[in-house]
């Protein structure tokens, strides 16, 4: 290995996400690839030879089994040491594997970063510069979208709350260091210990909840939408295999958002049933419709249900209207339901995929399911959401470790500067989620919080 390579950091990515029963590949590149191999495979696989092995977790248990391949640099795809782990375990297991690799010293690759390294190490022709640039560009747009998806709701709230607390603490600690002649010595203050302990608890809680997937969105969200009585709840119940949502012949049965998390052959899927979209004067129903619209905003896939038995002549106009209502989103699928009551005629090509089904008679459902699996199983979206989640978890873990270390430093050594250093690291880790915060921003907060200076 060349000397400079030891100084590049090591990156990891899911090269191909596993679909149902397929093979998923995790790729690692950089100076630590060999040591990561030793930790996960138990030994360094012979160069370029497929080695069948367990992939080990921290406690020595197997996360998955599969083939490990090691390509020493410079004769590898990126020009650096490369480790490839090919597993069978489906996205959830792939995700665990990815997290394990991150834990032992890699960071999740940026968009197009493998190709970029290959390019910088003369493994890809110079004429490909624009192509690599496109890869980076489109990749980073997708990553940004996934990050937004991952950062929704309670998780985002919690992270911002933690960020606020860390900033407040850093203001005190840094002010105590840079302005010791001011009248209050914040470091000597009992409140600092208390604030630190509180942050530690709050962080550990958020971390635990996130790891259990309780507040962070996982995988893909599938929303059922359409006019009242189209059969949305019926289809949702079919997918979940349970009577989650109430089904009646009354139009306007579903009035609130109903959610159910399922796995579709290893792919985590969140099902969301919504109130039928229509102009209503009923206050409860109106609120339900508002919530339905909100869900549509975050959906990865939207099934637009239409009662074909009612609309066999104008289903296209109906579909157009619904599409317009959801803002012509990617991932929309038109589902013509109740074909048991009215036989399906020839379907001309439409702007989005169209399926004819009957929930009650179980017609056309296999095709619909297969299509959905295909749309998400190998779709970058799942990977994107997974990666974004892993990134966030990794950042949160690092922040948590730093806060714990900081409190210990303060307790055992009364070392203000080491507490400050740990808080800086914790803050920088959180900033990977929440966005840039410079030392100048910090000083600005200090000056607006305290009357400082002579």
């Amino acid at each position: 290995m060349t000397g400079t390579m030891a100084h590049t950091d090591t990156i990891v990515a899911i090269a191909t996400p596993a679909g149902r029963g397929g093979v998923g590949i995790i790729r690692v590149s950089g100076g630590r690839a060999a040591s990561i191999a030793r930790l996960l495979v138990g030994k360094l696989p012979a160069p370029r030879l497929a080695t069948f092995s367990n992939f080990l977790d921290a406690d020595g248990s197997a996360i998955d089994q599969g083939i490990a391949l090691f390509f020493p640099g410079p004769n590898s795809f990126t020009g650096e040491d490369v480790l490839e782990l090919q597993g069978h375990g489906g996205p959830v297991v792939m995700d665990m594997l990815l997290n394990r690799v991150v834990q032992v010293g890699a960071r999740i690759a940026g968009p197009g970063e493998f190709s970029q390294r290959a390019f910088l190490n003369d493994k890809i022709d110079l004429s490909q510069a624009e192509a690599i640039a496109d890869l980076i560009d489109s990749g980073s747009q997708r990553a940004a979208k996934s990050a937004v998806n991952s950062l929704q709701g309670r998780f985002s709230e919690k992270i911002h709350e933690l960020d606020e607390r860390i900033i407040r603490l850093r203001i005190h600690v840094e002010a105590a260091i840079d302005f010791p002649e001011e009248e209050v010595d914040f470091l000597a203050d009992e409140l600092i210990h208390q604030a630190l302990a509180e942050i530690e608890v709050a962080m550990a809680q958020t971390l635990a909840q996130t790891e259990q997937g309780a507040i962070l969105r996982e995988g893909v969200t599938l929303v059922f939408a359409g006019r009242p009585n189209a059969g949305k709840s019926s289809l949702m119940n079919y997918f979940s295999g349970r009577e989650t949502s109430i089904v009646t012949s009354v139009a306007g049965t579903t009035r609130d958002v109903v959610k159910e998390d399922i796995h579709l052959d290893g792919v985590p899927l969140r099902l969301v049933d919504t109130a039928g979209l229509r102009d209503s004067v009923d206050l409860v129903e109106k609120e339900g419709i508002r919530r339905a619209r909100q869900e549509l905003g975050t959906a990865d896939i939207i099934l637009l249900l239409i009662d074909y038995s009612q609309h066999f002549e104008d289903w296209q106009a109906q579909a157009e209207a619904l599409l317009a209502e959801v803002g012509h989103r990617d991932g929309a699928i038109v589902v013509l339901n109740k074909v048991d009551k009215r036989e399906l005629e020839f379907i001309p090509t439409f702007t989005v995929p169209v399926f004819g089904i009957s929930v009650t008679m179980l017609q056309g459902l296999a095709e619909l399911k297969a299509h959905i699996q295909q749309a998400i199983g190998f779709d970058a979206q799942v990977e994107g959401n997974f990666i974004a989640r892993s990134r966030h978890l990794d950042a949160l873990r690092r922040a948590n470790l730093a806060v714990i270390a900081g409190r210990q430093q303060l307790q055992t050594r009364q070392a203000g500067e080491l507490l400050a250093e740990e808080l800086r690291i914790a803050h920088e880790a959180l900033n990977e989620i929440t966005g840039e915060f410079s030392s100048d921003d910090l000083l600005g907060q200090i000056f607006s919080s305290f009357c400082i200076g002579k």
Partner: protein
Amino acid sequence: MDYPNRFDVIVVGGGHAGTEAALAAARMGVKTLLLTQNIETLGQMSCNPAIGGIGKSHLVKEIDALGGAMALAADRAGIHFRTLNARKGPAVRATRAQADRQLYKHAIRGFLENQPNLQLFQQSVDDLMVTGERVTGVVTSTGLRFLADAVVLTVGTFLGGIIHVGMQKQAGGRAGDAPSNRLAERLRELPFSVGRLKTGTPPRIDGKSVNYAGLEIQAGDTPRPVMSYMGSTADHPAQMNCYITHTNAQTHDIIRGGLDRSPLFTGEIDGIGPRYCPSIEDKVVRFADKDTHQIFIEPEGLNTHELYPNGISTSLPFDVQMELVRSIKGFENAHITRPGYAIEYDFFEPRELKSSLETRHLGGLFFAGQINGTTGYEEAAAQGLIAGINAANLSLEQAPYCPARNEAYIGVLIDDLITMGTKEPYRMFTSRAEYRLILRQDNADRRLTATGRALGLVSEPRWQRYLEKVEAIESRKLHLDKHWSHPGDEAMETLLGQALTREYKLSDLVKRPNVQIDGLLEAVGLDWADTEINDQIEIDLKYAGYIDRQQEEINRVLTQHSVSIPERFSYEGISGLSNEVRQKLEQVRPATIGQATRIAGVTPAAISLLLVFLKKARHSLDDQKSA
């Protein structure tokens, strides 16, 4: 008339930036001229008579490690020394010295007069000589023309300087000195972006009229710290005390009553002042709930009664100044010797500078000090040193030098300025340094002196002293690594407060939080003199984990961050780069990828794109060359 001799380097301005610049260039062996308005004001402290402080003494010690003058002068002039943050850890520990104004000036002037290759000349510079995109010399107010390879401009607060006391304003470079208006006008014709900043100073007080009874005394520290690595307490003159008093509710009422005649609040002043160094009227308005503010009463020197009341910088009208001063405990009958004032002046957008402090618009022209948007003697001196070094480097046709952010606060200062620019007068704080644990004031020599030696800045005696120190640190560390303490070692067990369960290396015992190296040395009967060296060993050992981690952080990005970006690199052709990012890159024109990453709003993806296109550009350049 043309001055008959040609110089290699001309430095304009004899403040803190100018004097370090001139000394550095001359030390590097090039023929240097220091041109200043008035030889009597060489090394003058315009404001507070103090050197050092948090973040600032870090700069002073780095300047010292590179052979500069500031720390040596502070040791000769310091009349009150303190160690700040003594208990918060070595990285944020700092040294501050009250200086006798006259002694300080005297010391600086002595260094200048005795420096080989350096000549002084008293005259105001009115114009720059420019040929194409290069500076070739300067023209003084009497029309004298001086030619040189490089010109370093360090004219402080003098460009278009306007002094405010209440609603009265007058042109001035600082109290008692004329502004540099011709030069300011001329510079505004050149392609530099100019802005206005503001700073202020408190009224000075006659110590004979102060009632010290009941004021809190603040003595210097024992043991007394020293500023220079070459210094010792034997260099220090007699020591004096400072005192502490406070403003009160009445003071604040008086100030509020005068706000209608405050140039700050009536909109007279549009230059932006420093937030960390607010005027007393600012403090009273912005923090209305505080009913008292601390004032440090600092002596101006051994042979004067004048006092500097640190904490009541103001530009209120003189009658209000008198009234507010006299409302303060101890100042009931105080006589003001000089009114406080605010000053507004021109500064130049520092993002138009290279890290060598050469301007991007005019080759051979260097800017240093207050004119780059900073404030403070130490910040000025640090830039002066680097500009002086690089002016000499240019003349010697050598590569420019600027320490990196992980090597010195000087590097942090310059990188911040040229990358982020500044909206207010920029002052150093330790929180600006992400590698704070490595950049300590105790190890500046170990970080920089070898480089300084290679540049020709470090004298033989300094070099020898440095080598001895490093040798002693290494051999003593080795000793501690090779010697063990065993169960039953009584002195050691007493020190630890517990029995040893197995044998330990001495170096491992030093790492324990509750062990101090002095105690350990005593316990094992080692009589090692020189606490400076023992302290270094203790810090190295105790902080090894943190230092290694920061070093790892640095190494991790080193290869990528040191990729250089050609000066005229075109950002136009990079597909995928947003307009906003492109504009930022074009404004700052970062010299390396590392610098580019620090521009606010430049994303990791943008950096990836940059790397790809840089490589492409480099290759097409190679192709052109070989074709």
